[in-house]
């Protein structure tokens, strides 16, 4: 089961231009690990606001590329933080794992 929804991705590619999609993917691969790292840091520091904001950004980008599952997972974390709940169990691990798979797929879709 692929992580990236092909229809959403193709639409993005067509909209922004095929020559541009590589730059967009690179920006995401550049930024997303920081977001996840920031969430980790915020979790240790019990900084709900920072955790929520980074989960929000990750969700936003995941949805842009059609990484539907990652988007749903990030959204769940965003909402938990919104409720002031950082009792997230292993959910951040699941997010990392999902992101790794998304990243692999996107690398193959660059051209």
């Amino acid at each position, binding site marked *: 089961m692929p992580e990236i929804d092909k229809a959403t991705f193709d639409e*993005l590619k067509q*909209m*922004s*231009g095929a020559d541009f999609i590589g730059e967009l993917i690179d*920006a995401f691969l550049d*930024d997303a690990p920081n977001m996840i790292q920031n969430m980790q840091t915020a979790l240790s520091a019990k900084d709900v606001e920072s955790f929520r904001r980074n989960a929000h*950004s990750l969700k*936003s*980008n995941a949805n842009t590329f059609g990484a539907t599952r990652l988007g749903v997972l990030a959204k769940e974390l965003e909402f938990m933080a919104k409720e002031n709940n950082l009792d997230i169990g292993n959910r951040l691990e699941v997010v990392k794992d999902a992101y790794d798979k998304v990243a692999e797929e996107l690398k193959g879709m660059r051209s």
Partner: protein
Amino acid sequence: MTSTHEPGRLLVVDDNKVNRILLSRGLEQYGHIVETAENGKQALEMLKRGEYDLVLLDIEMPEMNGYQVLEACLQDAELRDLPIIMTSSLDELDSVVKCIELGAEDYLNKPVNYVLLRARVNASLEKKRLRDEQRKLIRTFTTKEVADELLKTGFSLRGNFVNASVMFADIRSFTALAESQPPDEIIEMLNDYYALMFDAITSHGGSVNQMMGDGLMAIFGAPVYYEDHSERAVRAALEMLELLDGFNQSQVAQNKSQIKIGIGVASGQVIAGFTGTQHRAMYTCIGDTVNLAARIEDYTKSIDQSILIDSYTYKDLPDSIKTQPLGPVVFKGKSVSIDVYSVETDSHKA
């Protein structure tokens, strides 16, 4: 899509790199000039330094979030009218509603769709252009104070009752004058004349709201209320005559025709407001007072007086302005007689 549009200078504010480049790309492809800011604080600094036509503003940001930027812009006289389109994800509907209520121009969902992005941006830019044009137009018809007041209160097409003084001024026997001179000289003379009259009127806080060939209508006390609107109108009338004196002297020196005018002022309640459509509107006043001012101005010709005023204008004048009672006059279309006063034209020298 190749609809005609003018490029705008836009600021994209988003803490997220992917969103920033996606938005910039979509707008640059369309010919707009795009700059980006990574957070609200940076955005506000850029807005205060540079000139932008439109802002695309993310809500969720560190440092200063979208609300704070929006509020700061709305409180800043220079940035208040800058259109701001909020960009947000679908599940932030509450936040979007809050922003629109605060005064954001529009909103756009992320992930962004380029067709919608361009349509909303172009619509906002077009609206801004209309507003800017309206503002320019307003500035040419009124004083800066009046224009500022109008821009602050907005261009609602609602009317309201106000107490004000209405002035009509007209060139005597203009038709004969027009027939005896070449057209370009007539237009030049009219333009010089209007420039002087505008000066006299606006420097006393009045605004000219109509020009009809050789005549004009001005209002004092609206849209900005002045307690002393009667005195302002009469003092403006006196200055108009004084400026016209100088104008006539230079006309004589150049062997050109002189201009004589009659001015009528009436005060009281008028209905004032913008009439027209959202795209083309003018500030205007209607009511008995307006009608009376026009009749009084007309009457100046019959009795060869320069400035005539009604009793409501008269009663608010200070003693330093000298007047002569001319007794009651029954004007056409009026059932009761009106006490009319002439203003002594050298009373401004007192």
